């Protein structure tokens, strides 16, 4: 479906994983015998009808290149759309390698504009889940949202990992406040005019 595309940020730096990510990006970390972490995001997206997927990479991405190749295993080897690696300096107006996710997003602007999908999924490879993102998108559209953030309830099993963002929302899920985890256990409310 051409109304949707996705970016998976493969170089999420997570200091607790240094030992495993010294030679490879987190997405290329072997998991569960036969998989790599990025397989989950990629498969969820493909199973949810996303056929345009870009992966911004910054460093240590050779093992990711080896693993994904032309992404044929996910049926993403296409003449148009399909799978694309987005290394630094791939497009004009990129003056430095990505050191934050936002810079990676800005650096991928040309890619996003070229594929001009109406909806963009932004994913990280450090989540192991089976997820129907099509259902998420349908709800996003029905509710008329600008942004939908996938969350787990506070205290639930899935919330045990490291997370850097927390939300306060009403029963409909409408967000009234965003918190950033400054250091473990300490949240700081994000203040923006009009938020």
């Amino acid at each position, binding site marked *: 479906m051409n109304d949707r595309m996705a970016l998976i940020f493969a170089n999420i730096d997570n200091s607790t994983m240094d030992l495993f990510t010294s030679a490879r990006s987190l997405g290329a970390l072997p998991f*569960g*015998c*036969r998989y790599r972490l990025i397989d989950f995001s990629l498969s969820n997206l493909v199973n949810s009808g996303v056929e345009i997927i870009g992966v911004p990479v910054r460093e240590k991405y050779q093992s990711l290149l080896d693993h994904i190749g032309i992404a*044929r*295993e996910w049926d993403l080897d296409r003449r148009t759309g399909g799978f694309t690696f987005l290394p630094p300096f791939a497009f004009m107006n990129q003056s430095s390698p990505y050191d934050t996710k936002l810079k990676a997003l800005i650096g991928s602007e040309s890619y996003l504009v070229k594929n001009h999908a109406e909806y963009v999924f932004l994913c990280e490879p450090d989540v192991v889940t089976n997820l129907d993102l099509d259902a998420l998108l349908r709800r996003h559209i029905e509710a008329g949202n600008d942004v939908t953030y996938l969350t787990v309830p506070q205290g639930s099993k899935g919330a045990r990992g490291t997370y850097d963002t927390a939300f306060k929302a009403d029963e409909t899920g409408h967000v009234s406040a965003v918190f950033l985890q400054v250091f473990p256990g300490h949240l700081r409310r994000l203040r923006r005019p009009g938020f």
Partner: protein
Amino acid sequence: MIRQNKECVAMLLAGGQGSRLEVLTRKVAKPAVHFGGKYRIIDFTLSNCINSGIDTVGILTQYRPLELIKYVGSGRPWSLDRNHGGVHILPPYARANSSEWYKGTANAICQNIEFIDEFSPKYVLVLSGDHIYKMDYSRMIAAHEKNNADVTISVINVPRDEASRFGIVISDETGRITEFEEKPKNPKSTCASMGVYLFSWDTLRKALLADNANSASSNDFGHDVLPMLLNEGARMFTYEFEGYWKDVGTLDSLWDANMDLINPRVPMRLDDPDFRIFMKTSALPPQYISSDAVIADSFVSEGCEVYGNVDFTVLSTGCYIGKNAVVRDSVIMPDAVIEEGAVVQYAIVGEGVRVGKNAVVGSRPEDSPNRDDWGITVIGYDLKIGENAVVPCKKVIAEDVPGRSE
């Protein structure tokens, strides 16, 4: 358009019914039959081709080709998806004024002369799609060139008491062939043809057209074309192959060849990084072995779940072996389910079969009062063997077997 000539084009004969595999080839051509846990028979020949540097392969299909065509696809698992060359499925086809099935092995190639001409090859390698072996054909081509041969036939030394089952080739000390005997009663040599023929294309092309014009011919390589070439004085040589080779054209030999893979004494290695056997993989989860499972001397493929006992068995992808089930000396094809307490021994269990609780399939030779009455048991695809049912040895099952109360 610039055409790049190919040194050698391989033609793989995959059109026969393989009727001696009975229920296993009811719906699929023999080369598409599952083998060794995660392969199909054709994987060996296709992998041999690419490992020998042959990147142009025609697959001649006729009998039940759907499964084979789906499996081969673009040829990518064997790196045979090429812009020029690669793998091609070649079915029989209608012409403006006539149409005919492939009448014999030679006729199948004859009907595809145009395909081979596309590549203007020096050599054409004729292969069967029902043999398990690993062979570097480039060495055979080198021997063919060294002998300045028109035809080279790959041969293997077989035990004298088995020689009468094969096509026997008699050659002089230089390897030049002087005589053929098809399944002789009193074989003059133990040199058996492996059904692997290398021809110089101009020789083969002329021979095929001559054979096709001969209305008395059955258009078969072994019966017609090779004897004709020998009579005409063509330079025909043997190429002695050393290594594992098995014709899996019968249920017994198919079972044997599977057992050979897990027999450490048999020199057939699937783990040689320099000569890999490629296959199309399905993305199945890792195998799961429960704490109740007891497994020894077996292949267990991806997607299997094992709770019972598995001994000297080839478990193919996606099989389920229930608690207290006993599976031994057997070949279990993909997605089969052996329920709790069932016993399967000396059997080939087809794809998608469900063996019900406490059912017993097959028996051990040592438990048979008369060894001559003993044989392996075979269950066709997608059948159900009911609870507590008993399927004796040497049976080939083509229909569901009802269960019975204890």
